């Protein structure tokens, strides 16, 4: 076990995987000479050379396009798109090609690529640079969407993403790169894609979150516990495939659920989780399921306004109290 920042964890996981498999190549804006905007590809160029670690022009369409084409043709590219807001320029390539080339051609082609990107607000970047929109990609059959909440999971899931033969959107929360965690040293430490994890158990309310909101939810749970309200907190870790099993199991005990996401509630992850619970567990529902999410507005630059719009520990505490009472 080594204590690492999330940025360092990603760089380490990438290096370990590149050491293992020569077909793994890294491309993106500023990933080589400067080690990535967030330092998540630091050291790779020196270690693996310019054929395997490639800076690209500011051309999101062809970053994703070159990755898909190369993946079809035997490489295992890990592409970095500087931010998920910029990935909109690559959206056609991701949803119309990465997600489709396997099925549309009757299984002839494979697309073993990872597209790493960052998501989330909280940095006073204004509305176009602060969105949390990974759930959009989770809409599409053919893609896998992973968004870990901590350093250990970053390692296990990034490695799993690189090793799977399917295209994976790997989404990192932009304010979390310097967060530290204990990371297993095992070069084959893998976590399964499509498994959520119970982070804390309690009998009153099931709180479902992923990425940065797992930490927020755990803080809220600790707060609530002081008043005797015990929450189960579940980290989805993967948005597609979505593992509902621990959520259903917990909900059958707690009969209450709050979902927490950094994106907007409308058509979001919480909506999906709630719909599934209503479909499968209607007899266990004691109160309406609540969704905590970013307020339904574009994010503002001004610090207080941005903080007001984003989901907070207090928002989760309040939602759980309202649900269980």
């Amino acid at each position, binding site marked *: 076990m080594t204590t690492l920042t999330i940025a360092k964890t990603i760089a380490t996981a990438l290096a370990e995987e590149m050491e293992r498999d020569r077909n793994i190549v890294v491309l993106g804006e500023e990933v080589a000479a400067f080690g990535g905007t967030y330092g998540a590809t630091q050291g790779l160029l020196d270690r693996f050379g310019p054929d395997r670690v490639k800076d690209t022009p500011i051309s999101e369409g062809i970053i994703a*396009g070159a990755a898909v*084409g190369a993946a079809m043709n035997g490489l295992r590219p890990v592409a970095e798109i500087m931010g998920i807001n910029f990935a909109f320029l690559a959206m056609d390539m991701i949803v119309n090609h990465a997600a489709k080339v396997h099925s549309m051609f009757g299984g*002839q082609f494979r697309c073993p690529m990872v597209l790493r990107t960052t998501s989330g607000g909280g940095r006073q970047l204004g509305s176009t640079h602060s969105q949390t929109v990974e759930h959009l990609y989770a809409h599409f059959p053919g893609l896998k969407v992973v968004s870990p909440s901590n350093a250990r999971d970053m390692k296990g899931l990034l490695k799993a993403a690189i090793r799977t033969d399917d295209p994976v959107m790997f989404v990192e929360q932009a304010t979390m790169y310097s967060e530290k965690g204990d990371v297993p040293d095992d070069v084959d430490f893998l976590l399964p894609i499509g498994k959520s994890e119970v982070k804390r158990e309690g009998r009153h309310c099931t709180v479902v979150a992923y990425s940065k909101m797992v930490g927020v939810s755990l803080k809220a749970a600790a707060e609530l516990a002081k008043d005797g309200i015990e929450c189960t907190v579940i980290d989805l870790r993967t948005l597609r495939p979505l593992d509902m099993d621990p959520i259903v199991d917990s909900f059958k005990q707690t009969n209450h659920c709050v979902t927490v996401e950094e994106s907007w509630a409308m058509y979001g992850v919480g909506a999906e989780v709630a719909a599934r619970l209503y479909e499968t567990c209607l007899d266990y529902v004691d109160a309406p399921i609540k969704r905590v999410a970013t307020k339904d507005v574009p994010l503002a630059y001004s610090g207080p306004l941005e903080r007001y719009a984003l989901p907070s520990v207090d928002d989760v505490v309040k939602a759980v109290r309202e649900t269980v009472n």
Partner: protein
Amino acid sequence: MATTTPTKSKRAATENAATPLSNEELLRLYKQMVEIRLFEEKCEELYQKGKIGGFMHLYIGQEATGVGTIAARRPDDNIITGYRDHGAALACGMSARVAMAEMMGRVDGCSKGKGGSMHLADINLKFWGGHAIVGAQIALGTGLAWAEQYKKTGAVTLAYFGDGASNIGYFHESLNLAKVWNLPIVYICENNKYGMWTPVEKVSATTSMAHKAVSYDIPSDIADGMDLLDVYAKTQKAIEHCRNGNGPYFLEIVTYRYRGHSMGDQRAYRTAEEIKKWQADDPIGKFEDVLLKAGIDPTAIDAVDDEVKAMIEDAVAFADASPFPALDEIYTDITIE
């Protein structure tokens, strides 16, 4: 050749003229062009009958482009194109049977009936499709080329697209990256003068496609798409350029589609004279003359025509006998793990 499209060669020439190809090869390429044309004429018929659905874009008139370029490739060179893909598929060696079964959505189609007319592909022929989002194949082809460069295979990628696609972001991003990374790829613009119903001069800042390569410092050439030998020679040169590690190359091939953009296109955006003028320069008729000049016996040409006709009938019978995929097939091949 007897087709619903006039192509008849003048059959005037009798003297032997030198070509870069053996007579056997000339006949083989002639046969491919006839196969594409008859295949598509049959597809039109089947479409009218409701046996083929979806969007269907015919290549008729452009045969020399696909056949002439693909004839110049090594078998391990990659081919990737857009939705107007029947010509490339057949020229790459896909059997008319398998292609027709795909057209008809049958289980024996190249993509098990999941792709249809616009998404023919065969990985074993290094024919990577058939892509119906305009310009995407330019980007995907760039990625294919990158993989070949990385693997040091020496294989070159030929990526085809239309004049219309030269206005899309993928085009510009791809050319720029290919130059920066020195990728072994020939960008082949099939300039058939229209993107759907819009003439190139209305939507493109320059009507010269080759000119667009200039700002990316990519060398280019222009070929006469109605002349297979010109297409072949210029493609050879282009491929050699790439194979020798000189980076990307751009080939504009000036051609014309006789039919509408896709089935059911009755719009009046070009004159009958214009279409007639191009048909007078038909690539198959013209190539027939090349064959005759090379001393190939007219009866040998007729024999090829008959052979292809029988082949297409056989392909239709095969496709028709092939079942639709089982309904549960929809759940397969979505992800691997």
